[in-house]
């Protein structure tokens, strides 16, 4: 019989960005908040200290900070008619675990979404007409606008200390920033990063071609910064061990470097590590959560009563928890009924390796997670798609986040995969090759979804999440177009060889692309196509809120984290100003 514990006001399932910031916001109001994190403690000292941290084999190849696939993985298939099989080793995307979650080992690329993103369906249909959109696609409006979220974007950016230059301040275009961004009310808290050589070459070529290059907004600090909570971050050292690694210098914004030092001191907050939540418990009406059940490291099960349950367990785990708990109706792509698991999307990543002469020393290992020079001219709907036959787009980034040799040793086309010619090509090209990163929209479609696997289970006996996904044809056409445009810039940079690598079908779990999984607990105005209302509250169970990129109806061109931050603060406000004053459905 599981032991029943003392009730708390709020329980957060997962203590990453969403869990820690929401916990902070609510604990400050006097509520008793419990954070249940299934992973272990992670702290800058000692966990992230270098040089031991700079271990490519351990953290990149063997995924040291990632979810332990041995105990819980997920299954995958491209098509709903296939049999899904387990992902036995993470490659394509890398779900995190542990205190701080993905916030520990992200790169820190810090983008806002566009105004158009939040009313994507309305915007696209108005601009191009309903018939412009492929019939299999399922684009939706979010139910909340960019204008409503703007103050919360600002708040999150100041919590993290984002480094950049505003391009659009309240409608006024500013030199040095991104002229295509949606308006912001304030300058960034810190100045932009230093520019790498590859970025500088890209900037020159892009300007000559009439594009608008700027430095990527970054959560790697450019100077010492004390955030509004009084926590101080240090400057980034451009060590080139950012994504998949923790930052030893307190320079990368993470729950550890921004929130936890204060949160962990608040007596209203309790952190329980190695606490694996099995399900949300519902009462007999199935419309009220009574708390959660979880298992500790010793395998003991506990019933944890709580008045409010916040599902903050990462985009892939959020839908799974709802499915395992019976919150919301599971989505069936054949009937198109149900909502949990619907509109799963990703990030359509393309690459352009650019090979230079041996006189061009790029020194790409001198890098930060978010260093890079970018153009926004081809993102989302920033360009006229008339006649092009697809929707969406990519931002184009030149520079590097790393040049760690096990995974980065580019060779030009025609080079064998091994042998002396391969070896010579690796030696010749390692320090003279840049790779453009094209980060593209991922459009939700009918047949891409998440549900529970019928066969495979985790170490606790619970069904694994099943992912059914392939790139919609629209996104493949989009990737081809933008890649071909971006490669013109590469040629202009004086490259010897330019290789177009637009994303194509099929999607494979065997090579890394991005950990930007979105959708599955979509927010919106219509309960027949969304799991959550605009306040991130589940339609079905009013005292369950979900805050993660699983809330996004489709994915924009940009990295999801800063938008998640805006939703975190937006939800915190909804809880404090509305829900907690009058618990119940907010819509």
């Amino acid at each position: 019989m599981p032991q029943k514990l003392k009730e708390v006001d709020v329980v957060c399932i997962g203590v990453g960005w969403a869990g820690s910031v929401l916990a902070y916001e609510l604990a400050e109001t006097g509520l008793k908040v419990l954070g249940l994190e299934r992973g272990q403690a992670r702290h800058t000292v000692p966990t992230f200290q270098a040089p031991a941290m700079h271990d490519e084999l351990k953290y990149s190849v063997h995924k040291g900070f990632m979810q332990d696939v041995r105990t819980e993985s997920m299954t995958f298939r491209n098509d709903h008619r296939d049999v899904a099989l387990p992902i036995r080793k993470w490659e394509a995307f890398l779900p995190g675990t542990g205190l701080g979650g993905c916030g520990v080992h992200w790169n820190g690329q810090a983008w806002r979404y566009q105004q158009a993103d939040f009313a994507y369906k309305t915007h696209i249909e108005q601009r191009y007409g309903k018939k412009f959109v492929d019939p299999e696609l399922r684009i939706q409006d979010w139910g909340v606008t960019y204008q409503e979220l703007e103050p919360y974007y600002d708040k999150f950016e100041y919590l993290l200390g984002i480094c950049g230059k505003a391009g659009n301040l309240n409608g006024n275009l500013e030199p040095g920033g991104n002229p295509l961004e949606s308006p912001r009310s304030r300058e960034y808290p810190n100045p932009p990063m230093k520019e790498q050589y590859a970025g500088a070459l890209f900037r020159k070529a892009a300007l000559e071609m009439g594009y608008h290059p700027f430095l990527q907004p970054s959560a790697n600090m450019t100077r010492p910064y004390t955030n509004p909570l009084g926590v101080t971050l240090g400057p980034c050292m451009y060590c080139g061990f950012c994504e998949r690694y923790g930052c030893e210098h307190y320079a990368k914004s993470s729950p550890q470097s921004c929130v936890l030092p204060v949160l962990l001191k608040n007596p209203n907050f309790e952190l329980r590590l190695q606490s694996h939540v099995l399900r949300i418990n519902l009462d007999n009406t199935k419309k009220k959560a009574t708390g959660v059940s979880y298992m500790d490291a010793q395998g003991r099960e506990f019933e944890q009563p709580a008045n409010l349950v916040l599902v903050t367990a990462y985009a892939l785990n959020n839908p799974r928890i709802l499915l395992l708990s019976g919150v919301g109706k599971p989505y069936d792509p054949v009937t198109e009924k149900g909502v949990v698991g619907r509109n799963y999307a990703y990030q359509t990543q393309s690459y352009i390796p650019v090979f230079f002469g041996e006189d061009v020393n790029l020194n790409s290992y001198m890098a930060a997670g978010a260093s890079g020079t970018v153009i926004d001219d081809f993102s989302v709907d920033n360009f006229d798609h008339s006649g092009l036959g697809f929707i969406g787009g990519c931002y184009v980034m030149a520079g590097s986040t790393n040049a760690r040799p096990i995974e980065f040793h580019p060779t030009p086309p025609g080079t064998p995969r091994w042998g002396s010619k391969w070896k010579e090509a690796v030696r010749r090209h390692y320090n003279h090759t840049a790779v453009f990163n094209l980060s593209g929209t991922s459009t939700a479609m009918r047949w891409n979804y998440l549900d529970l696997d019928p066969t495979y289970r985790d170490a606790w006996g619970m069904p694994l999440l099943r992912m059914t996904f392939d790139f919609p044809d629209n996104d493949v056409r989009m990737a081809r177009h933008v890649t071909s445009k971006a490669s013109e810039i590469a040629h202009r940079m004086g490259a010897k060889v330019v290789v177009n690598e637009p994303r194509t079908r099929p999607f494979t779990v065997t090579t890394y692309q991005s950990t930007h999984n979105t959708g599955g607990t979509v927010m919106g105005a219509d309960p027949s196509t969304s799991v959550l209302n605009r306040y991130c509250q589940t339609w079905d169970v009013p005292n369950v809120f979900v805050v993660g990129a699983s809330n996004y109806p489709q994915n924009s061109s940009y990295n999801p984290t800063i938008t998640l931050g805006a939703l975190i603060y937006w939800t915190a406000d909804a809880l404090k100003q509305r829900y907690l004053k009058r618990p119940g459905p907010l819509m």
Partner: protein
Amino acid sequence: MKQLSPTKYICVIIAAGSIIGGPISLGAAGDNSSSGAVIVAQGTPRGAVACARCHGFEGASDGSGAFPALAGQTEYYLSHQLQRYASGQRRNAIMEFIAKALTSDEIESVARYYAHANPPSYPRLSAPPDLIARGKQLALMGDASARVQDCVSCHGPNGEGEPPTIPYLAGQYKHYLEIQLLMFNKGYRTSEQMARVAHQMPEQHIEAIAVYFDQLPRPANPTNEEEIWNQSTTNSQVRRKRLQKK
């Protein structure tokens, strides 16, 4: 350590000149390392005081810790610090005037000279073993409660520096290290990299870290010709790029 008398300096120069090869002439554009030796021993016509007065002809200073050991710091780092003194970015009542009186070429010369200087090791003050051990822990692991990261990830394994930009700490004088950390801590010495670290560091950590590095052996200078060439190629290219930016 006793100060060398001026007479002894001159003897050493002449001896050094015969090793380096060729006559020494003041202000000659030829052999940089020998003109560096001259500046170190005699100062310059524009009024820069002889470096050796404080830093010793061998770059080991006088051992008191009032002046840092310079021997074996990279040419890049030494010339960079002199440039910072000259521009006022780094403040020191004595060094500012000296640095301002040096030309860019002279800075390069003395930096190169000290980069290759190789003094013998002098005995250190003893320190309590537990203080050294505490310093070692801080240097290698940092301090979670103070939110300070380790020293070695920037200052190199065993504090040997990360050439060319980051100086070695191993074998640097305890007193000098303490003063510099306090200066960083109080904001009198500025550095983008060191500001937060030193500001966060409680003063009781400073002595421990200083004694730990003091008792480590100074790292070996590069003796291999190719490495020296690589070091100076890097340094001169970096320097050229930096000068171009101005």
